[in-house]
Structure formats: C-alpha cells, structure tokens
C-alpha cells in the first residue's frame, strides 16, 4: 500500500484556527483542533485549495530552494508549459529559455516538448485500446489521488502513460549523461512546478516506481529570480526550443485534449467540477466520449497555487505566445521512449470507509445518523469540522466530542444555569 506523502503543510504559527480551509477542502480533509488546522493525511489529495484560500498564508507547500542547484555538476531546467504564461510582454519562449541558462542552468528541456510526445502516444494508445474508452487523463496528480480514494470503478479508465514532466526528466537525464559523460547522480533534473500536487508526485509517484525528477522548484520562486535575466534580444530560435502549439497548450484546460485531435471529449477544471464529472462517469451518465481531461485547478495548470499570474490573464498570454508557433516541435518519429507507460497498478484505498466490514460500517453509520440528527445542522464550522455530519463522524471515531459544537454547548450551559437557579 502506498504511503500518504504530502507537500501541503501547516505553518502553525500563522494559523489562526479560522474555518476558511476546512470549508473549502474538497475531500473534507481538514479539522481545526486546539485552535490550529490539521490535515488528515489519508484524505488529502494535495490539490492546494487550502493554500489558495488561507487568508493568513498558513498553508504552505514544500518545494526545493534554488540553492539546491549547487549540489549538481550539471543542471537541467524543466519548465512546465504554464510557466511561459507568467510573464509580461514576452512574445517568444526563446527569451525564457535563454534566461534559464543565464540563471545558472546548463541546459533546458521543455516539458511542453515531452507533452507533444505524450499526445502522440495517447492518440495511438486510445486507437489501439478502444475498449477502455473513455480514458481519463493522468497528467494532474491530484486527480489520480482523488480517483484512488474515491472512485474505484474508474481506476481502470486512467490513461496509463507517464506525465510530460516525468517523460521530460527521463529524456533530459539521458541527454545530459550522453553529452557530458557525467554520472546520473552528478546531474540535477529540476522541474519548475505550478503546484504542490506535482511536488508530491515526485516524492511519492503513482503508476511508476520512481520519477527521474531530482528537485522541484516553485514557479513563483523561479519567476522573481529569472526576471533580471530576461532580454528581448534573446527572442527567436535556440537549441532548447523544441515545443510547438500542442505542447505549450498543455498549460491550460483543453490543451491536452487539443493534442488528441478529437472532438468527442470533455475537458473540466476546478476540483468541484471535476468531482461532478467523475460522479457522472461512474454512474454511466456520460456516453459517446473518448477522452476526459481533468484539471484540479481552475483554468488548468496556469491556475496552480505556485503560479504568479491570474489564471485567466495567463491563459490569454499563453494563447498569444503560441500564435505563431509550429503545430508541434517534437515527435516520436516512430520510436516510443522507454519506460513511458505506467509500470505499477494504482490500487483503490478506501479511506472514507467507516468500518472493516459492511455490517460494522452500518452500525457505525447508524450511530453517526442519530448523532447528526441531534446536531443543529448549520454546518457553521465552529467546532472545527466542515459540517455537522463530519463532526458526528469525528465524535464516533473518538476524535471529537459533542461539546465541540458551540450550539450544543450553549444549550448545555443554559440548562446548567437554569438548574442552578432552581436550586
């Protein structure tokens, strides 16, 4: 069984114990206990909604610092497609790629280039395996994590192809070793990430044994470091520029399906919308569709919490940037890269199940139902649970008690005081 490693964590000094994050978490994974938020690690899918919504910036993401570049003799930057959409007045990706070299990287391998290969592989895979349609995209790690705990019937629908970032890492590492003659451990593969979910998927990958990404940097950190190195003179082609429209478009919703060259698809974004699509798919309410692209963040990867730009503005920038690009810059040329398919089964982990057997679960649920009836049903969150129902579950699980409900507590205090008065 896989562990539940996460890259979202709490800075408890900054946490005020308010209810913003508990109400917004799509899997109900956060509780405020003892005045501080706690993440239930089995429920968390690293979507970053709590990071986005926390007004005190107490929810944070673990990522590597730029200083880790010093640990390697040869460093390759892997910019996510959405990275290009963060800058003002950039009309050509050449400026960004050159700036990464000036920042200290020895080479750049565009994730967008690998994405074009993944698009090609996906087209072939879907054509060769029509029985599994509709396939669900697996580029967003939060979606895979959501499916494995909540949609067991959909596990087999996940497209078993590695992510563009992981493919880029493999290709970049191989290229670097060949070019420099260095050992693998002397080469550092740095992914410039839009979100915590991708950080987690490197530390604790699903579908593959190990990611070839060595370090994950936050786009927002690289952004500021990169600005002084960006020069208009660097516009134009260079040796690192190998992606076209298809690859760059992966940074926004509809980009991945765009590369499949089909019309009968669904592309949904925003975790709540994604959950609705998965529910409908599970109930066989969706038909006539070959592929379902799902992005946890609104707008796609441009909406990631480690980004700088407003996702809608970023989307427009990306569209302008890709306007004069060739349709695709990278191709498989009939050769499918090694290790580009999943090698490990993703297993269903029933974390939301109440008991070990249906019978035991039913007994527990009956207790929860009775308790939930007695709660006020306001879902105010003051107890630290996202809803009255969640508090009832917590009480039965033994991690909360009825007095955590301020409304029940008030009633109780009233009773005590009137009892005292009547003495």
């Amino acid at each position: 069984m896989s562990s539940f490693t996460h890259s979202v964590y709490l800075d408890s000094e900054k946490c005020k114990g308010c209810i913003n994050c508990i109400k917004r978490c799509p899997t109900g994974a956060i509780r405020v206990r003892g005045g501080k938020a706690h993440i239930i690690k089995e429920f968390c899918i690293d979507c970053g909604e709590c990071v986005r919504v926390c007004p005190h910036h107490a929810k944070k993401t673990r990522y590597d610092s730029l200083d880790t570049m010093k640990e390697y003799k040869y460093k390759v930057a892997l910019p996510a497609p959405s990275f290009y959409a963060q800058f003002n007045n950039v009309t050509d990706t050449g400026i960004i790629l050159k700036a990464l070299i000036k920042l200290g990287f020895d080479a750049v391998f565009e994730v967008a280039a690998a994405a074009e290969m993944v698009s090609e592989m996906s087209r072939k895979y879907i054509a060769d395996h029509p029985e599994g349609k509709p396939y669900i995209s697996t580029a967003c790690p939060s979606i895979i994590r959501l499916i494995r705990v909540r949609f067991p019937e959909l596990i087999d629908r996940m497209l078993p192809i590695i992510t563009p970032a992981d493919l880029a890492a493999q290709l970049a590492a191989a290229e670097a070793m060949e070019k420099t003659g260095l050992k693998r451990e002397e080469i550092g593969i740095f992914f410039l990430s839009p979100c915590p979910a991708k950080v987690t998927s490197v530390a604790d990958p699903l579908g593959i044994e190990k990611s070839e990404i060595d370090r994950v940097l936050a786009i927002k950190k690289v952004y500021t470091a990169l600005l002084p190195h960006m020069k208009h003179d660097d516009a134009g082609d260079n040796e690192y520029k190998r992606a076209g429209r298809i690859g760059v478009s992966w940074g926004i919703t509809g980009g991945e399906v765009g590369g499949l060259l089909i019309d009968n698809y669904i592309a949904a974004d925003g975790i709540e919308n994604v959950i609705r699509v998965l529910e409908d798919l599970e109930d066989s309410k969706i038909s006539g569709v070959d592929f379902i692209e799902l992005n946890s963040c609104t707008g796609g990867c441009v909406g990631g919490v480690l980004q700088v730009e407003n996702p809608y503005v970023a989307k427009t920038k990306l569209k302008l940037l890709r306007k004069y690009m060739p349709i695709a810059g990278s191709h498989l040329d009939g050769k499918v890269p090694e290790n580009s398919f999943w090698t490990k089964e993703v297993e269903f982990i029933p974390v939301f199940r109440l008991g070990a057997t249906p019978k035991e679960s039913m007994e527990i649920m009956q207790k929860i139902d009775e308790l939930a009836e007695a709660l006020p049903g306001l879902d105010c969150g003051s107890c630290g649970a996202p809803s009255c129902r969640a508090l009832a579950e917590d009480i039965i699980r033994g991690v909360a008690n009825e007095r955590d409900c301020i409304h029940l507590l008030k009633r109780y205090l009233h009773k005590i005081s009137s009892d005292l008065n009547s003495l």
Partner: protein
Amino acid sequence: MCMTMKLHFDVSGEDFTRAGEASGKVKSKLKQLGIAPDAVRRVAIALYEGEINLVIHAGGGEIDVEISPENIKMVLSDKGPGIADVEKAMTEGFSTATESIRSLGFGAGMGLPNMKKYSDEMKIDTKLGEGTRIFMQINL
C-alpha cells in the same frame, strides 16, 4: 436481529435539476459502508434510471431504500399514469417520452431495461391511472 438501514426520498416531478439527488445520496452512503464498488455502481445506475422515470413519467414519487449486509432493496412508487404495456415498456428503445423530454437527452427507451439489467431482481406493479410500484434488489 438482521441489521438494516432505511432511507427515504421524496422525488419532485418535472425538476430535472434535482433528479439524481436521491441516487447520489444513496451512492455516497454505500461507499462509506464499504459496499463492493461494482454493486455500488449498479445501484447508482438502476436507481438513477428509476429516479429519472419518476420525474419524466410520473410527476414525482417516492424512493425507499433498505440496505442490509446481504442485499440492497429499492422501491420506487408513484401515483402517475401507470404503464399500459409492461412488456413493451421493457423493450430496449421503446419510449413514450415527449419530444421536449427527448430534446434534453432523456427518453432513449433504456430506463426500464437498464433497471432490469443492473439489478438481480425486479418486479413491476402498475395500474393505469393509479400509479406504479417498482421493486429492485441487488444482492451483495
């Protein structure tokens, strides 16, 4: 004592925005109970078809679900027009839905056939002008 859990839902007619609410709630309960994923899916599909039928044909009705460790029993009852020819209604593709309903993507004539297909037992009691009562059971 045999352990059971009972759920009751009132389904309002002609309100498509709420159709699927009952089957959705039943599904999430079954998942929490750790019922086998395949059975959960079958219940969700069969019940959703039934729920849609209540909305389209009967002007609403009621759903009662009884969950036990052995099986899931569902009863959908309505005071709608009743089914004139049950055998015909069970034929795939046969539908009496109006054009306006079809334009919403419903009325493909798969409702009752799917309910039968996904359940282990199904029984229809219907009387013209009085209503219909459908019983479905899915064994665990």
